[in-house]
């Protein structure tokens, strides 16, 4: 299925938004997740975040999305000095589909919430791109796990926002669909500031212009050396394979 070009959104013309988070602190009960964590997301850059399970990746994403919980502090701002509210698209680790809405209505949830006219055409286009053209009108409870994840992806891509946060968006997809949707995401999110959490180093290598690794408790972030070439990179590329082995070694060392 060739990726049909979707109309470029108006926002992608605006200067990309850089994000900086300074000395973030987050505790859950006695558990100190972050203490003085700093994060820079350069504007328009696709950043991938790797890290062991349970280290705090999702918590960091929630923090950036403004979903604060008690026990959190830190200084979060965009490069234009304004707050981030209303400028973030967020795909959580769970698909969070609303069971009472059809797939199509779930995809256009953002405009429903904001009482805007829904761009059904674009939604149907996106559903076709994620391979769910036939399921637009069914309720989500008849979908398979991977299909649900694709609906959630389409819903996130519908939101036309300068900062896009995605928590393991491709984890439930088979290798081929995954490759196709990675390409789709890279294309549609070009020019936006993206932070994508993944467990698959190859995925990070394929998509990331910047790759961060989160580790330790309290967690710290470290950047991997930059890779040649623009994403989406070819997973068969020997440079990628070498980097992959380097990542595994690096992760193993900790």
């Amino acid at each position, binding site marked *: 299925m060739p990726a049909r070009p979707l109309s470029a959104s108006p926002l992608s013309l605006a200067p990309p938004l850089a994000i900086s988070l300074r000395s973030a602190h987050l505790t859950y009960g006695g558990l100190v997740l972050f203490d003085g964590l700093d994060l820079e997301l350069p504007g328009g850059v696709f950043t991938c975040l790797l890290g062991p399970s349970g280290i705090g990746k999702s918590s960091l994403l*929630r923090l950036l*999305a*403004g*979903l604060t919980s008690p026990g959190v502090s830190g200084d979060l701002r965009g490069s234009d000095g304004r707050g*981030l*509210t*209303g400028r*973030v*698209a*967020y795909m*959580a680790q*769970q698909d*969070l589909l*609303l*069971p*009472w809405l059809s797939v199509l209505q779930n995809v256009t*949830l*953002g405009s*429903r*919430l*904001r*009482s805007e006219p829904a761009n059904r055409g674009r939604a149907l286009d996106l559903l076709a791109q994620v391979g769910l053209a036939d399921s637009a009108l069914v*309720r989500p*409870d008849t979908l398979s796990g991977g299909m649900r994840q694709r609906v959630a992806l389409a819903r996130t891509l519908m*939101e036309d926002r300068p900062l896009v946060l995605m928590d393991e968006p491709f984890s439930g997809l088979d290798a081929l669909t995954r490759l196709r949707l990675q390409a789709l995401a890279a294309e549609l999110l070009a020019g936006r500031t993206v932070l994508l959490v993944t467990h698959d180093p190859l995925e990070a290598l394929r998509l990331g212009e910047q790759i961060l690794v989160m580790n330790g408790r309290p967690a710290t972030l470290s950047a991997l050396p930059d890779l040649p070439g623009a994403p989406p990179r070819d997973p068969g590329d020997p440079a990628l394979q070498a980097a992959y082995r380097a990542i595994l070694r690096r992760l193993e060392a900790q």
Partner: protein
Amino acid sequence: MKSLGRLLSTLAGLLALWQVIVTFGELPPYILPDPLAVISVLWKDSGPLLYHAGVTGLEIILGMVFGTLLGCASALLLSYSQHARRWLLPMLIASQAIPVFAIAPLLVLWLGYGMGSKIAMSMLIIYFPVTANFYDGLRHTPRGWLDLARVMLPGSQPGSHRWAILRHIAIPAALPALASGLRVAAAVAPIGAVLGEWVGSSAGLGYLMLHANSRMQVSLMFAALFVLAALAVLLYFFVDAGLRRLLPWHPITPTTDPETY
């Protein structure tokens, strides 16, 4: 057809049970008449019974409609505003503790003897299960959905765009809880209407029963009671079926009973 047959056999079984209680409990007819006497009254007086049932049925339906509307509105208000919780909730709860004789004169003064006081009384009864259940549902929206909505809305402070979140997330998510409340309401709506007729009326099954009771026409009273109970059962199953149809995304699961498959 089959379900009608089952209904009739259930009915026959219950009447038989009743007969057994009367016979073996050695209950005098002025306390519990035997079902045959009641059936003969049902037959003989079917005209007036139907007339009074019609009046009460109308009150029940109006009470259900208004009670549900008011209950939903109250629950929304309670979940929308902390002030409402602080002021309205205690009043709501207190309202449930008021026996009808204490406020009957007030209701009559304010609403007279027409439909008004009857609807007010039945609302008072129907209203609380609806409010409490819906409010409970609204308080327990799955957090992930709320987070999603907050990110999608321009102001991500909790509390901004409350109405959009209520409308698109919290209310639909609370509909199953509301449905539970409506099921309870359907079962208590008939007694609500009867209480309303108690305050003052000149027709309706409650009126008929009070009359019959005060005159020791026990068979007639039980005939009216039977019609009222039948109304309640019908209303419950009607409401239940309707709700199941309206909430297909919240299906009944065959927990334990193979026959529900």
